[in-house]
């Protein structure tokens, strides 16, 4: 890539820029730093040459931050005042960085933009970037959870279709358990995941937190009902309580140890690569069933592009955000990473919406909701995981466990209550 004529051409550009009297660094060029995370960081570098061709006066430096160190790294960089100009943020982190006043309101930029329009995005995903009716990030790629299932096992138990309501879900689970007593119908990875539990709560209409997100609402009637249903899976042996016995989800799924699993888009690629060829026709994805039928709610996940308030090159940052938001770049990025595009027209144009496995995600993405937009959410989510696991292990009853959970959540939210009411 270093020897490409394009690159050579750009190397000569600083001279031209200097003559044209461009602003920015001493040599007349604008340099922006872009922190991208993990695999996205590796792949986005391949889209940058196209941007440089269009904006020869802007130098983009992509720095890759590993996902598991990203959050700590960003906060430390904030404390050390060494944040970049632009960054990829998991959309659940946006409230936190908004609270720190580190990311800019993008509403005026979008208002003047010809590329980024709210109507091009999934409403639930767009909403995760909005706080106090201002936009703080542009969705880059999206993810959500759907139901992955073994169609052959469901068929063997006498079910032609995946469940379309909770009642059907229980019914199918019971039939699979009856047909394969040594196996399970579902698998919930309660030892490290909170998403399925939270999704069930959202589907039952729980807002998770109440009173302007200052108190836990997990012991409220909606979440309690959802947890009773969740517990049913374990009590009836429809899902394994001891999750540690499953060392590899792929292997257990291939062996038919469980038939249904709620997880995200990255599993499409993993299952295609890791399941044996003989099984490739026997698994499918479906939108989550709603409690009373129809498509249920799922989580609005994914990453957004944000502009850091400290940046001195905001127009350059915005042009890069716009460039990466163009449908062509979105599609190319999907080809490179397998991350699902944030723009709806990208799905339609590329017939991704009719893709065998991705179609369920497209339908689900129109039924997604953001988790509560408070900086404490990640910490609260860990507590949800902890207590729901204890409930499945019968260390608590559903009611007692959720009351204990609310007590812990209320301690975590004490500062927030003080900030909003107490001062």
């Amino acid at each position: 890539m270093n020897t490409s004529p394009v690159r050579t051409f750009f190397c000569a550009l600083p001279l031209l820029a200097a003559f044209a009297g461009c602003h920015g660094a001493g040599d007349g060029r604008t340099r922006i730093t872009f922190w991208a995370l993990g695999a996205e960081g590796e792949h986005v570098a391949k889209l940058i040459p196209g941007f440089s061709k269009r904006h020869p006066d802007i130098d983009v430096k992509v720095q890759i931050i590993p996902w598991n160190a990203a959050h700590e790294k960003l906060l430390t960089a904030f404390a050390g005042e060494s944040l970049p100009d632009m960054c990829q943020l998991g959309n659940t982190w946006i409230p936190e960085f908004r609270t720190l006043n580190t990311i800019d309101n993008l509403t005026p930029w979008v208002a003047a933009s010809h590329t980024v329009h709210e109507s091009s995005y999934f409403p639930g995903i767009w909403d995760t970037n909005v706080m106090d009716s201002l936009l703080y990030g542009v969705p880059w790629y999206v993810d959500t959870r759907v139901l992955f299932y073994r169609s052959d096992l469901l068929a063997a138990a006498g079910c032609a279709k995946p469940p379309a309501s909770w009642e059907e879900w229980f019914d199918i689970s019971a039939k699979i358990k009856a047909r394969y007593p040594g196996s399970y119908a579902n698998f919930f990875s309660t030892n490290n995941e909170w998403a399925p539990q939270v999704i069930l709560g959202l589907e039952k209409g729980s807002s998770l937190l109440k009173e302007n997100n200052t108190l836990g609402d997990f012991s409220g009637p909606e979440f309690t009902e959802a947890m009773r249903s969740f517990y049913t899976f374990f009590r009836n042996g429809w899902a394994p309580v001891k999750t540690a016995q499953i060392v590899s989800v792929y292997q257990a799924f291939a062996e038919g140890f469980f038939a249904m699993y709620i997880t995200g888009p990255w599993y499409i690629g993993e299952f295609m690569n890791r399941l044996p060829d003989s099984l490739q026709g026997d698994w499918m994805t479906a939108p989550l069933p709603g409690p009373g039928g129809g498509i249920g709610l799922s989580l609005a996940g994914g990453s957004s592009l944000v502009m850091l308030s400290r940046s001195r090159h905001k127009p350059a940052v915005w042009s890069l955000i716009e460039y990466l938001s163009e449908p062509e770049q979105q599609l190319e990025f999907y080809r490179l990473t397998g991350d699902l595009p944030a723009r709806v027209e990208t799905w339609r144009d590329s017939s991704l919406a009719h893709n065998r496995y991705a179609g369920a995600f497209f339908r689900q993405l129109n039924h997604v909701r953001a988790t509560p937009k408070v900086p404490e959410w990640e910490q609260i989510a860990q507590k949800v995981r902890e207590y729901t696991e204890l409930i499945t292990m019968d260390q608590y009853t559903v009611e007692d466990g959720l009351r204990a959970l609310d007590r812990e959540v209320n301690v975590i939210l004490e500062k927030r209550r003080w900030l909003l009411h107490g001062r």
Partner: protein
Amino acid sequence: MAGNRAVILFLGPALVAIGVFFFLPVLAAFALSFTDFDIYALGSFAFARFVGFKNYAQLLSDPLFWKAFRNTLEFLLIGGPLSIAVSLGAALMIQSKLVRWKGFFRTAFFTPVVTTLVAVAVIWRFIYHPRFGLLNYLLSLVGIGGVDWLGDQHWAMPAIILMAVWKNFGYNMVIFIAGLQNIPAELYEAASIDGAGRLQQLRTITVPLLAPTTVYISILTMIGYFQLFSEPYVMTQGGPLNSTLSIVLLMYQQGFRWWNMGYSAALAFVLFAFILVGSVIQSRIQKRWEAS
């Protein structure tokens, strides 16, 4: 006085450096432990509150803290003596007249100490792998079924202890060797002339004369093992079910994952108190032992 001035001149730079880079941060952390410094306070310092002993009270009623405390204690009480015993055994073996290639063994046993932990962790993750691991392969030869070493909440801590002992025993071994070399050879000669066997010599000469070294090593080991962090951090992240969560790992999570700096600082001082009490008890035992 000219002498005083010289003392100040020579000690001054070092004292200033220690003051700025050691005492000041420690004092600041101590002050922090009485505030609720968190993510909001990071945004604006006006959002930090003085909360008195609330962090300490909250900590002592936090089940997660006690879980971490028990785990750390388990690591300390099993891993510590085990590590000292292995170190002593290795030192005795290397000092033994029967063993050849002493230099080779000394170097080989010391190698894990100077190897980067992350590299060691990669190897040990292979060893502990439930399906393809060396350890389970060896166990299967004697008919023991596969154990998920790092994934099972009952086996994760023993697995961490085993790895930590392997990684650290070489250091104490070198100190033990120095201690052994300080024992006069005449004592052994006299003992063997009097008809004492090898075991009797070990019990009546080696062990008593090594006592000061052993106390020194056990205090160092205790201090080090109380601060268990990197092994679970790279191997298990504290899991499964918090079974390998140590006090320092909890401190790290509270401080840098959730940014609850006040709470995290309080944890640090509680840990400091534990280590202080542990050291005082050990040196008391040593004094009483020397007096008798």
